């Protein structure tokens, strides 16, 4: 089912959590809300779930207006960052909760609930843990139970708040892949919140990048990576080095090297350029480019990762796929950028 938010505004006292946010998740899409803490991504998710209500704006789920509709009438599956499992219930009772609390008329029979719970335990690969209590499970298992509980009520959409936030790196990776599989199997429109750009780019069909309560860009991971719409997006996606440059007629000049811009057009004058570590080659001292001193050099197989320092003390990270011999700390070199994305200063 599709989800549409139009012109959503939310303030908490003097603090603006969301200022005029609009987005659309298409039927069956896996959408990521990506941004630093305080960007408003969790608030937006909670508004979609009906756990917060917007000051202005419209939420449509499957074309239906959600105004004034409380969380319990929205049929939205919500997975909480800290799992929020009912601590005094067994895993099976947790999963069956949404069915058990239905009014008498629409409540499935006890046996039917048990069957459904067993089915979901199978889906989340925890078939033998139905009688355990949440405190007896690992973080990854709890997250799976939380997902099973949300799926039990046959929600129309699935919302996940930092689903892997509290897990260690290895479990995170496994669970990430598994969640994508579950999504592909159920075909549920899903929206998840994360502050981890790798997670968003790896998992989502499209990524919504947010900052300070505004949407900076909505795009596929490829488009986001190739054409970041703003300096914030480029910076937040990570790894890019920030350099000062001059723009004239759409050409960017960095230390005498002139390159076409890989970002939206901008006015002539001083600009901030972003260059990714692999977008450099080395040249001898005195040639055009950015003169640097090598601080550290780490060789891994055929690659080399350099940490270099410019005359102003700025650090530039460089990755070379075919590094020359003799790169030692203290050596002076010139970095020649091969591509650049420039934004207004």
């Amino acid at each position, binding site marked *: 089912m599709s989800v549409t938010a139009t012109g959503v505004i939310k303030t908490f006292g003097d603090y603006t959590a969301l200022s005029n946010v609009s987005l659309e998740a298409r039927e069956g899409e896996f959408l990521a809300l990506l941004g630093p803490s305080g960007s408003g991504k969790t608030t937006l998710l909670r508004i979609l779930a*009906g*756990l917060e209500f917007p000051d202005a704006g419209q939420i449509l789920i499957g074309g239906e207006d959600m105004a004034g509709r409380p969380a*319990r009438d929205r049929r939205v599956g*919500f997975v*909480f960052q800290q799992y929020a499992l*009912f601590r005094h219930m067994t895993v099976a009772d947790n999963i069956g909760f*949404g069915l058990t*609390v239905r009014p008498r008329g629409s409540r499935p029979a006890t046996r039917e609930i048990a069957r459904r719970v067993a089915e979901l335990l199978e889906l989340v690969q925890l078939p033998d843990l139905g009688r355990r*209590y949440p405190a007896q499970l690992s973080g990854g298992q709890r997250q799976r139970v939380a997902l099973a509980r*949300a799926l039990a009520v046959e929600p129309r959409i699935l919302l996940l708040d930092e689903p892997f936030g509290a897990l260690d790196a290895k479990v995170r990776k496994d669970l990430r892949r598994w969640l994508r599989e579950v999504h592909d199997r159920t075909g549920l429109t899903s929206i998840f919140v994360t502050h981890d750009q790798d997670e968003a780019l790896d998992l989502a069909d499209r990524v919504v990048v947010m900052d300070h309560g505004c949407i900076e860009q909505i795009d596929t991971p490829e488009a986001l990576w190739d054409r970041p719409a703003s300096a914030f997006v480029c910076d937040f996606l990570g790894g890019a080095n920030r350099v000062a440059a001059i723009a004239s007629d759409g050409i960017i000049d960095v230390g005498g090297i002139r390159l076409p811009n890989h970002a939206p057009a901008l006015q002539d004058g001083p600009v901030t350029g972003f260059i990714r570590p692999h977008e450099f080659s080395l040249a001898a001292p005195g040639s055009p480019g950015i003169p640097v001193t090598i601080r550290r050099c780490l060789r891994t197989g055929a690659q080399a990762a350099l940490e270099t320092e410019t005359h102003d003390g700025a650090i530039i990270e460089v990755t070379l796929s075919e590094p020359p011999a003799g790169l030692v700390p203290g050596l002076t070199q010139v970095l020649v950028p091969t591509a650049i994305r420039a934004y207004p200063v």
Partner: protein
Amino acid sequence: MSVPAATAEPRWVRWLLIAVALGFLALNLALPLAAVFVEAFRKGVAAYVAAIRDPDALSALRLTLTVAAIAVPLNIVIGLAASWAIAKFDFRFKPFLVTLIDLPFSVSPVVSGLVYVLVFGMQGWFGEWLRDNDLQVIFAVPGLVLATIFITFPFVARELLPLMEEQGRDEEEAALSLGASGLSTFWHVTLPNVRWGLLYGVLLCNARAMGEFGAVSVVSGHIRGKTNTMPLHIEILYNEYNFAAAFAVASLLAGLALVTLVLKSALEWRFAGQLAGRGH
């Protein structure tokens, strides 16, 4: 040689600490408690039984139990409502409400009693109206109940508040998003999560409700056989130099308190696993 743990103190320090704590408890708690029972039986079992079977004593016992039976359930409801509101919702006068809950602890019980006399007494604000409608609050059971509710209000709320605040709202929100109504969320999620804190608060509340003296003394009027609760009855007997009877009734009151404590320990032992949050 084994390496001592970082927190291991020398043996004599540990023994000293234990001795100080035990000595203090023996001197200030065990000894007086024992004295109550010793004094109660000083004039023999027959005198003890007679003192207890005295109609005024029985009436005091009945009244004490009645007041507790009304005040404690009401405080459970009000305490639950207050702590639920404070822990799970945001509203403007929250800090004010939290302070208000502590008020009965900070005000002298005598003052709390006097306040009720001022409001509901014959010369009080509602005095005339109450007289016209043939209702008596002060020097009657309703006054005793009101004063007891006031004094014992913080026990349940104070016990539940930190617990509910620590547990947060996530589980309630999860229940709502799963389609549960507000009432069934409370019944299936909120209440079971705080049941041990609630039980503890209720036991403390009950112990104090039965033992309250100051506020109750002001509103009671000390009418023998009518508005005397056990603590008040004990004071009267004591002031009449009827020590054996005074201690006999006192031993009964102390007995009620001990039963409460034993009950609590028994429940803690029986459900130790759940208390530790491990489920079984």
